[in-house]
C-alpha cells in the first residue's frame, strides 16, 4: 500500500508538472482518524497530500463527471476554437474505473479528458461495521498497521482486522483492479470472493413475495428522501433528476409511503447495467437503508439476461443501450402457453 501511495504521488506530481492534467482527483487523509476524503490537487507540490489506503471509499468518478461538465458549461459562450479541454487525472480503483467506462459508454466525455491512475484495491473499511465492532465508541486515535487497525477509544486500545470490517460490496468484488487505466500503480491486487457475489440475492429470492414486500416496505420506510444516495452515485448525473421534475411530476412529495417507494424503486431501476456496486450510496445514507439488497439484484439480472456487467467492457454499448434479436424473453406472456 505505501509503495502504491509513493508511486501515486510521484505520478501525480509528474502529470501536473508536465501539464498533462489540470487536476488530479484523489484521496487525502480525513480530519478524523481512520478516514480519507476526496481531494483536488492542482499543483505538483501538493501531490504529497495524496493517500491510498483502506479508508478511500468514495467513487471518484462522480467528481470527474462534475468537473468536466462544469468546465464544458463554463465555455459554452466561447468560440469552439477557443474552448479548452480540462484533463482530469483520477485515482481509480476497480469500481471507479467501471463508472468511468459507463460515462464513456454514455458519451459523457471523451477518453482524452481522462488520465487514469489505476490503483489495486483490497477493499475499504465499512464505517458502520467498524462502529459496531467498537460498540459505538468514538475513535480517539487510530492507525493502520498492516492488515490490522490499531484503535484507541475511551475504554482502551483495540486491534481489529481490516478484513472483519470490509464493506459487503468489497468482500465479493469481482473487479477490485481497474478495468482501464493509463498507468497502473503497483501490482494488481489479489482476487476477492466474487463466487459469492449473488449469495445474498439468491437467498432473498427464495422468500415469498409477501416477505419480500414486507422487507422492501420496511427499508423504504427508513428513507427520509434526502437524496444523498443519488448525489453520491456516479451514474446519477442527470441535470434534473426525475425526482425533482414537475412537468410531469413523476414522484409525489406526500407522506404516502408509496411516494418514497416509487422514488427509490425508479432511482434503483435506473441502475440496470449502470450500478458498479461501489457502495457509495450505501455509505452516505444517513438512515442505513439496505439499498444493496435491491441494486445487486439488477446486476444479477443484467448478467443472467444479457451476459454483461456494468462498466465491464469499454468496447461494448451499455446493456440497455444494446439489444439482440435473440434476447431471452421468458417473461413474455402467451395466452394458452406456448409460442
Amino acid at each position: 500500500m505505501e509503495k502504491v501511495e509513493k508511486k501515486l504521488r510521484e505520478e501525480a506530481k509528474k502529470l501536473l508538472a508536465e501539464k498533462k492534467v489540470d487536476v488530479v482527483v484523489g484521496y487525502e487523509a480525513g480530519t478524523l482518524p481512520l478516514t480519507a476524503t476526496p481531494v483536488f490537487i492542482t499543483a505538483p507540490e501538493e501531490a504529497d497530500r495524496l493517500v491510498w489506503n483502506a479508508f478511500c471509499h468514495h467513487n471518484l468518478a462522480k467528481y470527474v463527471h462534475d468537473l468536466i461538465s462544469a468546465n464544458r458549461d463554463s465555455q459554452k459562450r466561447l468560440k469552439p476554437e477557443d474552448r479548452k479541454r480540462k484533463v482530469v487525472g483520477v485515482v481509480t480503483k476497480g469500481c471507479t474505473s467501471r463508472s468511468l467506462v459507463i460515462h464513456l459508454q454514455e458519451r459523457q466525455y471523451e477518453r482524452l479528458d481522462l488520465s487514469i491512475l489505476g490503483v489495486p484495491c483490497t477493499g475499504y473499511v465499512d464505517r458502520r461495521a467498524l462502529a459496531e465492532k467498537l460498540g459505538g465508541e468514538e475513535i480517539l486515535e487510530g492507525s493502520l498497521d498492516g492488515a490490522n487497525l490499531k484503535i484507541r477509544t475511551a475504554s482502551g486500545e483495540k486491534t481489529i482486522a481490516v478484513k472483519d470490517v470490509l464493506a459487503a460490496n468489497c468482500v465479493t468484488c469481482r473487479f477490485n483492479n481497474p478495468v482501464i487505466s493509463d498507468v497502473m500503480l503497483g501490482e494488481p491486487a489479489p482476487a476477492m470472493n466474487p463466487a459469492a457475489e449473488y449469495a445474498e440475492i439468491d437467498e432473498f429470492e427464495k422468500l415469498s413475495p409477501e416477505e419480500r414486500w414486507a422487507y422492501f416496505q420496511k427499508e423504504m420506510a427508513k428513507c427520509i428522501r434526502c437524496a444523498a444516495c443519488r448525489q453520491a452515485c456516479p451514474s446519477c448525473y442527470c441535470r434534473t433528476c426525475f425526482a425533482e421534475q414537475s412537468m410531469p411530476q413523476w414522484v409525489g412529495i406526500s407522506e404516502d409511503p408509496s411516494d418514497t417507494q416509487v422514488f427509490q424503486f425508479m432511482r434503483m431501476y435506473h441502475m440496470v447495467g449502470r450500478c458498479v456496486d461501489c457502495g457509495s450510496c450505501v455509505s452516505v445514507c444517513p438512515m442505513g437503508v439496505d439499498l444493496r439488497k435491491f441494486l445487486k439484484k439488477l446486476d444479477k439480472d443484467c448478467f443472467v439476461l444479457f451476459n454483461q456487467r456494468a462498466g465491464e467492457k469499454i468496447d461494448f454499448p451499455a446493456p440497455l443501450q444494446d439489444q439482440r434479436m435473440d434476447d431471452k424473453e421468458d417473461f413474455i406472456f402467451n395466452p394458452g402457453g406456448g409460442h
Partner: protein
Amino acid sequence: MSHHDKPAGRKSEGWEPKIVAIVCNWCTYAGADLAGISRIQYPPNVRIIRVPCTGRINPFYVVKVLQAGADGVLVSGCHPGECHYISGNLSARRKFATLKSFLNYIGIEDGRTTFTWVSASEGERFAQVVKAVTERVKALGPATKLVKKLRDADVAVAK
C-alpha cells in the same frame, strides 16, 4: 368521496379489476381494433393507452400506473422483428425484462404486470390476452402494493 376511494370498499362484491393497457400504435392497437371490427368479445376491464412504439414506453409509466391504483398493467407491442421502427421493441424488451423481474423481486405479484406481443392481424390473440390478464388479476384481487392511498387528483385512475 365515494366508498370507492377506500381499498376495502373496492374489495366488496362485484369488484371488477381495472387494467391499464399500454400498447403500440402499429401492432397491438391495430390488433385491438381488429378485435373490435371482428366483433370478438373480450372483458371490458382494460383502458387502453396508445403510444407510438413500445420503445417509447418509459418503465416509469408502468410503475406510475400501479401507484395510481390500477389492479393490473398490460404492455404490448409488435413481435420482435416486426417493429415499425425496426428495433424499438427490442430495446423495450430489455427494459421490460429487467423491470418485471425487479417488480417481482420487491414482492409485486407476478400477475399484476404482463408483457406480450400482439400484431395487427392478431385480433383473436388480443382478445385472448385481455381475457387471460383479466382472469389473472381477478384471482389476485385488488392491488394494494405501491398504491398511493393519499390520492391526489392527477394520479388517481378515474373511478
